[in-house]
């Protein structure tokens, strides 16, 4: 496997706040790689550095073998990027937005025209190509941005929160596009997301990032297998008692999270009656009990002790505190 992106001890500080903290990993050519983490974890900062929009404080990285600091234009020519926030000119038509991009990347006129038609067909916007972007829906804009990002035939495509703010149906649709793209064009796709489901469905490998650090990196399956089987969530007024009672060899792990106790074990369906019996004999009250297959949410929880949503709330609080500090 060839390496598309090589990252070594990459770090970025903003006035003392560490946004990205000495991360190192490789992304292989042709894979869909996900950076999964709550808002404010450092995903966009990482992407900004890899796309040469932001200089690293320390550390280094190469994209397609090109150093991000030594040859910015070299990197820029070989990557495509779809930003988190929209970056289309709303006053221009879809075609004109594409054409502008093609000219900026100095694609010769004939090739440019041909590729624009081809890509607009791919993202199913050909019948709207001469409409002003202002009239487009969120999903159409995203599709147009993805098509635009591919116009100069990049070998690496960055997608920063590609489905943020889209309705579930459009999101599903977009996932199909991205998967098809990776397969048909053979390009490496790096996407950031804070949607667990998105990372799970799309990515070959996932790096979970929190507080600027990579806390886990593997295939979604391996990450979920790492939990140690199925997940049983038990709610009870006495969580400590559950942890005491369930200290059994066939249980991989028991952890308390808020009012819930989270139990990991293999073949939960077969053991659920034993668990209930055990708790009943020991007179531990049960409010509710649920079994599910492990998700990336469970993985995140097991690594950080928090759900991604709780972590986001924390990050927001930190951000507010930080802004206050800066202001005063």
């Amino acid at each position: 496997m060839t390496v598309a992106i090589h990252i070594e001890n990459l770090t970025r500080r903003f006035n003392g706040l560490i946004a990205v903290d000495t991360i190192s990993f490789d992304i292989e050519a042709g894979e869909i790689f996900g950076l999964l983490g709550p808002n404010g974890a450092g995903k966009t900062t990482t992407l900004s550095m890899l796309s040469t929009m932001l200089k690293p404080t320390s550390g280094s990285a190469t994209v397609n073998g090109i150093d991000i600091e030594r040859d910015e234009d070299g990197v820029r020519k070989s990557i495509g990027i779809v930003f988190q926030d929209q970056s289309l000119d709303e006053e221009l038509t879809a075609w004109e937005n594409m054409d502008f991009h093609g000219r900026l990347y100095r694609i010769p006129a004939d090739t440019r025209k041909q590729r624009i038609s081809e890509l607009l067909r791919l993202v199913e916007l050909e019948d709207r190509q001469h409409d002003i972007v202002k009239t487009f829906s969120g999903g159409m804009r995203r599709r147009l941005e993805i098509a635009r990002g591919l116009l100069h035939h990049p070998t690496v495509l960055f997608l920063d929160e590609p489905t943020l703010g889209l309705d579930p149906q459009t999101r599903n649709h977009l996932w199909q596009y991205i998967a098809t793209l990776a397969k048909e064009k053979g390009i490496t796709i790096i996407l950031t997301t804070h949607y667990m489901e998105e990372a799970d469905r799309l990515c070959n490998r996932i790096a979970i990032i929190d507080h600027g650090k990579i806390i886990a990196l593997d295939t979604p399956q391996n990450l979920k297998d790492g939990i140690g089987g199925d997940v049983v969530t038990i709610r009870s007024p006495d969580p400590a008692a559950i942890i005491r009672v369930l200290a059994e060899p066939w249980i991989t792990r028991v952890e308390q999270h808020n009012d819930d106790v989270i139990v990991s074990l293999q073949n939960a369906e077969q053991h659920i009656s034993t668990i209930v019996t055990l708790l009943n004999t020991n007179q531990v009250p049960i409010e509710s009990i649920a079994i599910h297959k492990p998700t990336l949410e469970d993985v995140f929880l097991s690594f950080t002790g928090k759900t991604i949503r709780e972590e986001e709330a924390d990050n927001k609080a930190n951000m507010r505190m930080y802004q206050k500090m800066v202001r005063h």
Partner: protein
Amino acid sequence: MDIVYTIWLRNMKRYLRSKSRIVGSIAMPLFFLLFLGVGLNSVIQLPGLGESYIVFLIPGMVAMSVLFTSVFSGIQIIWDKQFGFLKETLVAPVSRLEIMSGQTFGGATTAVFQGALILILSVLVGFPLSNPVGFLIALAFMILIGISFTAFGIAIASRMEDMTGFQLIMNFVVFPIFGLSGALFPISSLPAWMIPLTLLDPLTYGVEGIRYGLTGVSQINPLVCGAVIGGFTLVMTILGAFLFRKIRI
């Protein structure tokens, strides 16, 4: 050069599509012409400066049109910043100087076009424009005002976070530049303390240059006008390019 053209082309497309902007920005100089020109025409005597006040005023209004349109075009970069489009341009493998130049020429073109519209409207209602060389001289001054003040707008926009400061800039920077320029009154009739201020205003030389081209009369030697506004254009372009290079998004 192809990149400069690309950015210029985008500016033209946007400009030609925004009918309200075209109409909106010729309205103010037109109203000035109407109210001040017609209103004061019979009251004001201009010794040795052409025949009437309205003829004196028209070159000033052309300059005003170019000034406001160009500053506005430059400041438009903030919109591109806010609506995200600037990112698309900045992440492309092109130099900031190319982007800045394209934006400057785009802004200058629209500004000159707006100025020309005022001139055409003036000719239609009887402004005497018979000297083609004079017209070319006026056009050259319009282009210089257009380039310098678009670059000026870009320089300001590069230092601004959002549009909140826009009104402030317009009222406290652009309007005084216009007011002091002698677009509305002859410099020689000003009180002595005000004349140096007027002579410090770069637009004064632009207005006088256009006036020389269109009416054949000016209070400042047209060569001096050309040198000052030319120098100002150079300084503004360098400043704009320098600040734009440091723009953060």
